[in-house]
């Protein structure tokens, strides 16, 4: 618990006005160092971070890894895997490996941007409802609850079906509006529980304005929940976006894992033996989702000591550390 708070505190304290005086915050370098140490010591976090880092690299520098143009239909179609084409080619003569690598960018952009925007919306709606209470709470909560109750994926399909050809921005907008409600609900609940903490009342009694209390006193203490919301939303959005693209919404001429699946399905890839065309994008989607989930687990473990796995000893069998401890106690 301490590490997350220290990290969050150091980061936020360094960026907020009025808190930059010495003695009230660490510097960003120290905070990152602490988080890095926390990640390194936890297997799940490490795996997830490494995976995510790999994907980020692919998204940033696709040309370094895949030399081919992913959309160019210049190769012999339906080739199997070979040294020239690691995953083979599509029915249109495109290199699947190049598509997979270049497609990372669009998928990751969708995941991250929609995750961030959705989280921001969750924070605003959830925190405001929880802290301001009264009429604000009723109105904001009502909107959130309505969106929560409606099944998200069918709603997505309906909205996208009626909108004109939407590209990535449209997809992101739709994902954000339909997906923020879950996080908002959680943040509202957490705000309600934190609201009665004495330090918030103490801040009001010393004369702080309500806006300040929300921004400076409440948000930093909910950092781990906000991060968890972001990670959870990102996972869901990756899957939802891929799902929508697979169904043909979104722009089929763009290159992403979801559109790969769309074209694979259209050309009956699995039935015609072109397994890799369908499996590769599917596996990559799963891996990206797994990366986010692992990091999410790790954050939970880091911030909640009760979840950490601990070696259990029974009296019959003292573990070596305790035997030494026993030996050191004289008498």
């Amino acid at each position: 618990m301490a590490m997350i708070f220290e990290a969050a505190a150091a980061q936020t304290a360094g960026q907020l006005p009025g808190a930059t005086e010495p003695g009230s915050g660490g510097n960003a370098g120290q905070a990152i160092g602490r988080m890095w140490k926390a990640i390194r010591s936890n297997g799940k976090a490490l795996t997830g971070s490494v995976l995510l880092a790999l994907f980020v690299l692919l998204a940033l520098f696709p040309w370094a890894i895949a030399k081919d143009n992913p959309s160019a239909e210049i190769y012999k179609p339906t080739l199997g895997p070979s040294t020239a084409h690691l995953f083979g080619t599509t029915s249109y003569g495109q290199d699947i490996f190049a598509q997979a690598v270049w497609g990372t960018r669009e998928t990751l952009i969708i995941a991250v941007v929609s995750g961030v925007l959705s989280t921001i919306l969750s924070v605003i709606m959830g925190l405001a409802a929880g802290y301001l209470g009264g009429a604000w709470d009723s109105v904001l909560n009502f909107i959130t609850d309505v969106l929560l109750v409606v099944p998200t994926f069918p709603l997505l399909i309906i909205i996208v079906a009626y909108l004109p050809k939407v590209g990535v921005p449209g997809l992101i907008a739709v994902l954000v509006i339909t997906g923020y409600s879950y996080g908002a609900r959680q943040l509202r609940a957490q705000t309600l529980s934190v609201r009665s903490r004495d330090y918030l009342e103490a801040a009001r009694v010393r004369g702080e304005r309500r806006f300040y209390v929300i921004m400076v006193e409440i948000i930093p203490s909910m950092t781990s929940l906000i991060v968890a919301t972001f990670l959870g939303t990102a996972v869901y959005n990756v899957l939802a976006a891929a799902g929508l693209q697979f169904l043909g919404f979104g722009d089929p001429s763009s290159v992403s894992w979801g559109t790969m699946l769309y074209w694979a399905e259209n050309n009956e890839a699995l039935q015609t033996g072109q397994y890799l065309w369908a499996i590769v994008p599917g596996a990559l989607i799963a891996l990206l989702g797994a990366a986010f989930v692992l990091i999410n687990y790790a954050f939970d473990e880091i911030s909640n000591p009760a979840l950490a796995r601990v070696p259990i000893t029974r009296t019959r069998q003292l573990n070596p550390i305790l035997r030494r401890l026993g030996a050191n106690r004289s008498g």
Partner: protein
Amino acid sequence: MTDAAPVLRTEGLTRHFQIGGGLKRKTLHAVDDVSLQIGEREIVALAGESGSGKSTIARLLARVYRPTAGEVYFQGRPLSGLRSRADMLSYRSDVPMVFQDPFSSINPVFRVSHGMLRSLKLHRPELSAAERLAEARRVFEIVGLTPAEETLNRFPHELSGGQRQRVGFAQALAMRPKLILADEPVSMLDVSIRIGLLNLMKKLRDEQGVSILYITHDIASARYVADRLIVMYAGQIAETGPVEDVLSSPRHPYTQLLLSAVPDPKADLSIDANTDRGEPPRVINPGPGCRFRWRCPLAITDCASITPPLLELSPDHDAACLVAQSGAEVKAF
């Protein structure tokens, strides 16, 4: 008790809450018609059990709640006259509050200096950043948090409960207050640590000239630290006066009950058949009459219809009990 004008005075202070919904709407009389005063350089203890209204009074004085009726006068001026933000800030710096729970009264995410420096920025804007730090160090030393520089840089979880409460007092002190509202500041601390905080309060009164309203449920600590004692029951004042007077000759049956229930290892235990069970006070739609009458062995018929006023029974010693006011000897518990 000084004859000088009191620092803070309340007149008929009342606060009700509406509870229940729809047809079953009831009124909870948290505080009813409380008139008290706190002078300069004095520690006044406000003692009572849960449901007595003592915490509500703290919040009324800290302006967290508005009163349903009655008025609070600070240095002669009514609080309802404070309109602008500047006026409110000025009041808040004159009458700050120290909270009960050392584990939740400081934001765990920031260093301990955060709240202090914010207070200083809000209430003493004339200070520069360096001066604010110097002031923070100065008050930390006064409350015994040394080395001040090092402690300022710690996070709350690195300090003990007692140290955190001292931080609370330091924050209050930094605003150069006239009156500190201390809401059960030692209840959640270990017994051996409490004395240190109680001694600190005495020191603040003597050396810094600050008055303190010490809210507690522990009469023994009230005796140790306070000059005057106010005993509350069910939202009303039962008895008030100099602390030694009230404790050595309590006139209100409730005060006597409280005194008899305090565990005293040196005295023998007296158990009689009528040992009071500790019934919660009736504050929902109470109606007229004394609110203690159901538990009082001396209740007379008038107690059910006349709400006893707070009257002076001996110099500076008031009690709200019809039986005591009639001159009879009150020996209830």
